[in-house]
């Protein structure tokens, strides 16, 4: 990737609420370039006096959707950029973006083997791009998503994940850590080694793992995957903390 990443003006063409504190923006890009699932864009917002703020957002959509990308934004309390994207932005608004960026936390058909995706909260976003691409490109590699959220209501992309899980080769498991609906059959605790062993056992020894979420979850999941026998070089992580506003 030798080309310089130039800023371009994205136009918001659709807004979809996902949960109470999360929404997806569809951005039309005049200079769209195919991304690899897992990559992100930088966003730059400029105030009237020239002050500018930049943040990175993972791409949620698959590269088969040309000319536009989805980003999914979660509210960070006291954040600077996320409240603007959640509360102020309307369809037709424009702001600067550049990307796609990132070359390690990426998955596509060039990566051999089954994939284990482990998400905490909005860490599911780049993993969703991988699952959407897997479906759109009809990749046959088995995929398993273990998705930890506090409550059922905080699950992002729930209906679409149910649909993806009904297809061949994909399974989705949830771990609800704070509250569970009546009759809940999924996990009702934080991610631990037993859970990781349980979800990965059907994938075999060639599995490649992608872990994305808050630092504490990523540390537990990446360490746990090593303890149950995955080599470190097949565990790719992306961490975000309170500063990812």
């Amino acid at each position, binding site marked *: *990737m*030798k*080309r*310089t*990443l130039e800023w371009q003006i994205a136009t918001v063409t659709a807004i979809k609420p996902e949960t109470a504190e999360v929404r997806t923006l569809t951005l039309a890009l005049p200079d769209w370039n195919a991304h690899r699932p897992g990559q992100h864009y*930088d966003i*730059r*917002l*400029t*105030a*009237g006096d020239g*002050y*500018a*703020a*930049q*943040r*990175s957002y993972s791409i949620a959509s698959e590269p088969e959707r040309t000319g536009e990308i989805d980003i999914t934004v979660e509210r960070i309390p006291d954040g*600077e950029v996320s409240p*603007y994207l959640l509360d*102020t*932005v309307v369809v037709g*608004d*424009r*702001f*600067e973006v550049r990307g796609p*960026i*990132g*070359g*390690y*936390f990426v998955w596509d058909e060039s990566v051999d083997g089954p994939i284990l995706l482990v998400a905490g909260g909005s860490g599911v976003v780049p993993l969703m791009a991988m699952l959407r691409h897997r479906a759109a490109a009809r990749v046959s590699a088995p995929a398993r998503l273990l998705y930890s959220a506090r409550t059922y209501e905080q699950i992002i992309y729930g209906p679409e994940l149910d649909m993806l899980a009904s297809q061949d080769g994909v399974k989705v498991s949830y771990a609800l850590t704070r509250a569970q609906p009546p009759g809940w059959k999924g996990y009702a605790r934080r991610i631990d080694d037993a859970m990781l062993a349980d979800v990965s056992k059907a994938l075999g020894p060639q599995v490649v793992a992608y872990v994305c979420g808050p*630092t504490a979850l990523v*540390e537990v999941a*990446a*360490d746990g*995957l*090593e303890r149950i026998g995955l080599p*470190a*070089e097949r*565990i*790719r*992580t992306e*961490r*975000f*903390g*309170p*500063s*990812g*506003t």
Partner: protein
Amino acid sequence: MTRGFVGRRESAGTQANRIPPGQHLVKDFPVLSAGPTPRTDLAKWTFRIEGLVKEPVSWGWSEFQKLPAQDFVKDISCVTKWTKLDTRWRGVSVDILLEQVELDRRAAFVTAFSDGGYTTNIPLPELVNGQAFVAYGYDGKPLAPEHGGPARLVVPHLYFWKSAKWIRGLRLMDKDVPGFWESLGYNNHGDPWKEERYTGD
């Protein structure tokens, strides 16, 4: 200009001139790394200077602790947009380490290498004269593993991916060989004040 965007400049206040363009201030210490956190047995830990030197040198953990250490207070900036001011470190200046070897006159670039296979490249002139150190203490405590402990390189004037976590040595070279992130779309140099974030910036 972005319609309706005001921003939160006051978070920086009078320290705004210490925050590079496109960065924002944080009070916490975010963790970013590409894979699991390595855990190195200190009994097996070594720090090595190799490559274009007359004789390579290697220290074990207890030997490394006996090298003259200093306290450093530095502002650091991560390419993921956060800047943290006045971070407090303890460690050994790269100048002290390089005094222990005789450099080949062709040595012009350095590859820092780490547990887990991570590498990053830095021009030699940007590691010397008090610009970089190998830290094993942070905020009065041993450096935590997720922040690069037992020891990490700190090069505060470059984006923080150049400050290799879990460092195990420096390799002196005559050529500039891109490291891990430098081969994956990130800038070869990484000066925050010039916003050298990505390839071509």
